[in-house]
């Protein structure tokens, strides 16, 4: 029953979630460490929690990660 789990996931909030402002502030550090293969979710669990829940910030992160990875090639 995917609707129930999708709704449950949407309504479930993570108390570690740092919010958009702090995630955006740290996005360059987080993306660079992620591109280097560092365990960013363990190091910055609050940012990781936010990126799992916030579509717009996750989109910015994906773009920045792609840009950083592109620079390395």
């Amino acid at each position: 029953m995917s609707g129930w789990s999708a709704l449950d996931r949407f309504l479930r909030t993570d108390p570690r979630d740092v919010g958009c402002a702090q995630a955006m502030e740290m996005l360059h550090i987080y993306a660079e460490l992620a591109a280097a293969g560092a365990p960013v979710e363990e190091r910055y669990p609050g940012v990781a929690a936010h990126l799992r829940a916030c579509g717009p910030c996750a989109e910015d992160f994906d773009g920045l990660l792609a840009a950083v990875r592109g620079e390395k090639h």
Partner: protein
Amino acid sequence: MTEHVTATAGLDAESADWPRALAGTGPRREEALARLHGLLVRIARSEVARRAPRLQLTGPELDDLAYQAAADALVAITSKLGQFRGESRFTTWAYKFVMFEVSAKIGRHFWRHPSVRLDAEDWERLPDRFGFDPAQEAEWRDLLTALRQAVDQELTARQRKVFVAIVLNGVPLDTLVIELACSRNAIYKTLFDARRKLRAVLAANGYIGDDVWRRS
């Protein structure tokens, strides 16, 4: 909740040079500005192309959006040079502003789009939003009725407005930022509080599990 960052040791020479060149004067600054603008345009175009499949924008519009985002990112970067603390490469820090500007420009594009409805309440779309199977309506009808009741009775006017716009009407969060003239963080926090409140009500009435948040 706040998380702190320790600066990475050993800033590379290029990253150390960018702020000096951009904060300087004369031909060296002009050359740095032109070089950075070129990089930002390249990144903005890549980013817009990456997001293009999900946007209702055509080639020239995408290119305009990329150039505008790069230009505004350059303004943001030069005005915030003092905030670069060497915790990443300079270009990574700079590209972050391209991402923000691309998001803001896309949000503005949809804000202008006549099909974006902010206040209309189409509750019939809710089952589809969460992927409820119409064939099993008997099983989820009560849950969604309770959710609607909680939205009507438990949320503040502001929380309700944000919930309706984003969840029912599918308005992009960055478009709502423009409509409500506030930050992405403020909208997110409003929705975060609404989600928490709705979940608590549904759990208290036995519609969903009342287990506390689990580590993923």
